[in-house]
């Protein structure tokens, strides 16, 4: 099934009936890219995807639709651009800027996907662009008139780079021959890293062209049979740390370091986020790993300026939590919980959690499916296997204080304990709404009353509940501060679970504690 050969043949003959039929019956597979401030759009898109019985993609290789949720302008755009480059035809790309247009945008993408002749043309253009890049003789800019002069020079530049580090590698190989001990190729890796850096710096320039829904000749990373030099962009969807790492982007092999078993082994720099399924929007976790064990971690936060962001999970300060507010807070917890369950590898439970979240967000949707949700809640809460795999994971002892730029502040009580305890608090939030009769929540909601500071006396003298966004900003601030130490020494599965159990809301962090978001 060589689509490229087909594409060449079909340029004159048109698209075969079989391909048309396949496209028609195929299920759309959207990949969501959420910018900070895009929570509302994300929820809307997730609802539409669920209602249509679609499944979200985990990686660009399985996606055919790129859905960007939220405002443009934060660092996530570059990541989205690279993800777009990695998707094979047929593909479509849409941006959802408000919750109302989610369905319409996905329809739009579907129409673009079904337009096979256009997809084929785009694929052919992209292939041509690759060829242009790979052949010395290619004329710059022939694949697309809109190319900038700057970009047209890229292929040559790129080749030069690759030529450079091929030589470098040869040198490396020779030196290995003479000295078996210095065989750890870190200089060499840095050679690739340089290449990566160049590509990534170019990425925004490329972005000007990629954004209009049809495939277009920027697939620089495809079809390169470049041996050894390939640590670059295909991983782009998950590690783009332009803030902290010296060598942004690709898998860069660094020096060696002691691992937890006392062996000095090679280390690899990767980053998780910002484009990652079930991952907090705007979070980038730069990791130094050996195998799948994290040695060091650093957190970067991609937040746009405050005025661009509106906090979705927010309400006003109040004396007591009325049912409506509890319900909204339960929806927020359900969102975090379903994401956590997805990361924990329980897709069915996560799917029900998603449904529950959407139900809770509709004020009058109370009655429907109540028994199924309570049954689901009980099953999650009582799952021995879940507790077994979370036990002792990501512990946060109580009483710690974290040093901020100006003052130190305590870790919010809600984050104390291990991952299982934090997940349990979300479950309690939901139980307070779903099963109010079993826990006396309206007088003393067990979890929602917990706050960052020590309780100021009895129930009567309790200060008003701060806005939800404010609370979540404090959790996020603590989470961002604690994460690097918490994930060091853990393997990747545990890292994902720890992050999911904290689920920092960077949207509220950007608005309520902007100084913490831009440290």
């Amino acid at each position, binding site marked *: 099934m060589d689509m490229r050969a087909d594409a060449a043949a079909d340029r004159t003959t048109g698209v075969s009936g079989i391909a048309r039929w396949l496209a028609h019956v195929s299920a759309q597979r959207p990949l969501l890219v959420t910018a900070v401030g895009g929570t509302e759009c994300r929820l809307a898109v997730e609802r539409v995807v669920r209602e249509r019985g679609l499944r979200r993609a985990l990686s660009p290789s399985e996606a055919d639709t790129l859905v960007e949720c939220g405002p443009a302008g934060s660092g996530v755009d570059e990541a989205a651009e690279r993800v777009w480059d990695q998707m094979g035809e047929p593909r479509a790309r849409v941006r959802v800027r408000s919750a109302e247009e989610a369905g319409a945008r996905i329809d739009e993408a579907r129409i673009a996907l079904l337009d096979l002749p256009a997809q084929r043309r785009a694929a052919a253009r992209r292939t041509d662009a690759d060829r242009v890049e790979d052949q010395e003789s290619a004329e710059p800019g022939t694949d697309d008139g809109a190319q900038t002069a700057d970009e047209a020079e890229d292929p040559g530049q790129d080749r030069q780079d690759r030529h450079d580090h091929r030589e470098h590698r040869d040198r490396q190989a020779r030196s290995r021959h003479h000295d078996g001990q210095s065989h750890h190729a870190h200089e060499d890796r840095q050679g690739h890293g340089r290449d990566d850096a160049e590509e990534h710096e170019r990425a925004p320039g490329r972005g000007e062209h990629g954004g209009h829904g049809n495939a277009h000749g920027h697939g620089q990373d495809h079809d390169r049979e470049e*041996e050894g030099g390939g640590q670059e962009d295909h991983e782009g969807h998950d590690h783009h740390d332009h803030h902290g790492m010296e060598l942004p982007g690709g898998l860069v*092999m660094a020096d060696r370091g002691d691992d937890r078993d006392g062996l000095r082994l090679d280390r690899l720099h990767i980053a998780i986020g910002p484009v990652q399924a079930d991952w907090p929007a705007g979070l980038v976790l730069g990791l130094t790993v050996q195998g799948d064990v994290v040695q060091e971690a650093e957190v970067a936060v991609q937040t746009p300026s405050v005025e661009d962001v509106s906090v979705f999970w927010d309400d006003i300060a109040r004396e007591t939590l009325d049912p409506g507010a509890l319900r909204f807070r339960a929806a927020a917890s359900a969102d975090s919980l379903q994401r956590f369950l997805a990361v924990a590898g329980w897709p069915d439970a996560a799917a029900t959690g998603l449904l529950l979240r959407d139900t809770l967000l509709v004020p009058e949707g109370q009655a429907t499916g109540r028994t199924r949700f309570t049954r689901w809640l009980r099953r999650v809460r009582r799952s021995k296997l879940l507790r077994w795999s979370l036990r002792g994971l990501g512990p946060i002892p109580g009483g710690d204080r974290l040093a901020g730029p100006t003052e130190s502040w305590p870790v919010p009580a809600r984050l104390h304990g291990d991952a299982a305890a934090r997940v349990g608090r979300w479950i309690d939030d939901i139980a307070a709404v779903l099963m109010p009769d079993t826990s006396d929540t309206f007088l003393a909601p067990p979890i929602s009353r917990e706050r960052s500071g020590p309780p100021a006396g009895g129930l009567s003298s309790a200060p008003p509940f701060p806005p939800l966004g404010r609370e979540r900003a404090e959790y996020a601030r603590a989470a961002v501060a604690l994460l690097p130490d918490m994930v060091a020494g853990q393997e990747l599965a545990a890292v994902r679970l720890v992050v999911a159990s904290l689920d920092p809301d960077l949207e509220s962090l950007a608005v309520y504690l902007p100084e913490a978001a831009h440290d």
Partner: protein
Amino acid sequence: MAEWTVFVVCAVAAVAAGAAVFRVDSMARATFALLASFVFTAVPVLLLDLAYLGVLIVLMMTMEMVVMAVFMIMFMMNPAGLMPMTMVHNTKGALAISIAVFCVLAAGALLVPWPRESAPPPADPTLQLGEAIMGDDMLVMMVAGLVLFATMVSGVVLATGRGRYDRYGDDLRGRPDDPIRGGVGR
């Protein structure tokens, strides 16, 4: 005739894959070339009526090679990609010795008047093997078991960096101090 064809194809492929082990420039390719060589030699063994041993070669060698791949990646940097590398010494001498050894062995194989057995092989060679290792006093099986057990113990002792005193403390009591706890809850 069909058997002969299968043998020739597999024999040539086995030797070629074996040679490829030392020709390819990626450790993963070397490992899996070796695995291919084993699989191709298992087929001639199957042709000799040794169904059990032939399949066992495939089974054991696949596991071994995959474990080897893990170690190889661990020591040989480069978690992905094909980093060209050569780490050889004295290739010419090695080649000369190998060719000489091959000539001697080949001459021996062709020139020695091998005794021939006209009796047919047993109906079930697997049963024969089983009785040989498990029958009578089980000597073979016991020796093999002891060897493997000793290997396991000494391999772990050699490879591990932390003994039980590191894990449990000087009095060997309480919970082990492991970086990652296992699933049984110790």
